[in-house]
């Protein structure tokens, strides 16, 4: 083993291996970008109504945590999965992955109609989500993966403030536009009354001045 390691630092071995490792280190973030771009480009648009709070993430700066109206209540399992979900051993547990089927309510906002244990066919609109906790009555509370909106440091607070006030006021519509593709969702933007949040906050700041 040691002799292998000593060989690693020889020039004709080190350079190709280092090159490969460095390439992978670049390709992984590149793929993450590619995946997001693909979702934004080809994904189906859904509007999710929200209510937010604002913690601080040391790694990624200020962001607004979004809490979704669509997951306020537990979501039932699909009739097909009911038997499986009732069985204690096969029932999804906390942090297990399931598929949430997206439909639209009468006002045009997205909601989750049911959960499926197996991956749905590709013509359905669905998100791959983790279970927060399972209920006894064949339903489960889920964790939405796109739960943070990254905001400039000096604007996160006012965004949160606006969203909190506006989302309580039934006349204002606060929602995130999410592109969904192959079970993955990417936030396109956060809107108050059809105006992107940054524009909205900036125009409000100007008015205040």
């Amino acid at each position, binding site marked *: *083993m*040691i002799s292998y*390691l000593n060989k*690693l*630092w020889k020039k004709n071995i*080190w*350079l190709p*291996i*280092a090159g490969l*490792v*460095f390439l*992978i*280190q*670049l390709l*992984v*973030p*590149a793929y*993450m*970008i590619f995946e*997001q771009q693909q979702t934004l480009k080809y994904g189906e648009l859904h509007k999710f109504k929200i209510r937010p709070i604002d913690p601080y*993430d*040391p*790694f*990624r*700066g*200020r*962001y607004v*945590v979004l809490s979704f109206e669509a997951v306020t209540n537990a979501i039932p399992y699909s009739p097909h999965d009911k038997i499986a979900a009732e069985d204690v051993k096969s029932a999804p547990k906390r942090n297990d992955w399931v598929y949430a089927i997206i439909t639209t309510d009468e006002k045009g906002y997205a909601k989750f109609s049911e959960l499926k244990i197996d991956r749905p066919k590709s013509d359905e609109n669905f998100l791959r989500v983790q279970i927060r906790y399972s209920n006894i009555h064949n339903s489960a509370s889920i964790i939405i*993966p*796109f*739960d*943070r*909106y*990254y*905001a*400039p*440091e000096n*604007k996160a607070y006012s965004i949160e403030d606006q969203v909190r006030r506006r989302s309580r006021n039934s006349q204002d519509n606060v929602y995130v536009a999410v592109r969904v593709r192959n079970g993955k969702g*990417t*936030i396109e933007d956060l809107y108050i009354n059809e105006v992107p949040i*940054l524009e909205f906050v900036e125009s409000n700041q100007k008015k205040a001045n």
Partner: protein
Amino acid sequence: MTDQVEQKAINKIDIEPNQKTWLDKQLKHWQQEEIISTEQKRQIQILYRTKATRDNNWATGILVAIGALLIGGGIIMLFAHNWEYLGKGVRTFLSFLPLVLAQALAIYSYKKQSHSAAWWEASATLVFMTIAASIALIGQTYHIYGDLERFVLTWLLLGIPLVYLLRSSMVLILCTILIVWLCTFEGKLYWLFFALLFPYWIYAYKNKVNAAFYWSTWLAAIGFAIALMLSSLFRRSFLDFYPVIFLLLMSAAYFLLGKILFAKANNSFWKNPLSSLGAIGIGLFSIIISSEGNRSSYYGREGVILNWESYIDLGLYFSALAFIIFGLGKYFKHLKFHQWLMVASGLVAILALLDFAQWISLLGWLFIGMNLYILVCSSLIIIRAIEEGKTLLLNAGLIWLSSLIALRFFDSDVSILGKGIVFILIGSAFIGINVWFNKKRKQQLQRQELNHD
């Protein structure tokens, strides 16, 4: 004559740089005083060689690495500021820039600074930190989920090769921290990542690369224990069912492994991380067992989940136990008796197995045995320490023994009758050991006197 000198030159004597400076000065002086000729001066100079100052080199290395760590952290924070006015394209470019620069620096270090630990450590640390910066900035630009587990896991996987490519102790330490983080907050089998670091640890051990080796061993050994135990809570495995017993087993295994691997470490506390940590663990966990008897898991036996993750835990349990049994047999003569006894504490794990299999449960009685064990073992340590004049060992033994006595006195769990019996046992054993020890000493002294006569 010249041939002989050349021959000697192969077996050069290593001297410190300041000694070399002094020697050169003196030689010059002697030559001026005409004590030696120019040829003789040259011949003397050939005999000596300045010692390569690896440690100094490394000390600079770790300082530079810390600098690199700070710079890397700074880059992450700059990105965290979130520059909304930069477009997506610019931000994408920015998220790759530091990583590419750090990688270029690593290649430069390899090609042009192949003997500088400082360059290697610094560039490895920078690459490691810029990986995080890069992923974090992309996550921020695209509002990618706040899934910290995936973030840390990606960071760790992309970073581990740096330990090998650039022989970086700093990255080894950082990876240890990430693994412990994953096990603390996510559970699962993330402790297995230590296996990926192990070959490098062996290499560093064989080559004693630098003082960072001891640092990283201390951290990795503690990290491994924490990672394993905390993650076992998540999967409710067998280890979680008998946590203290397993920790005692693991401490004993650490202790034995340290005694085998670092046999030449001159019993230095700092330079034998495994044994020192094992000894602390044996002291601590034996005291806990001696106090509480057997407190079973919150979930009860039915709560133990047996899946493949648990089987890996079990495998670890059995290997540690097998290692201890093997060590007790093989190293009986190499270890001092109190050291051998300390390793033997790991045998408690057999009781846990018997209990779990529901063959025979002696765990209810274990606390009595453990009290006697600590009493005997700590007394032996104290005696040994006095004989060898070792202050640290003596104090360790005294602390162990006195905390046992103090705890028994204030124990409210044991009935007064039980307490009485335990105290009588402790007292008699104490007197017994002392009488025995004095007799032995007297015999020894008499023998010595006879020899002198």
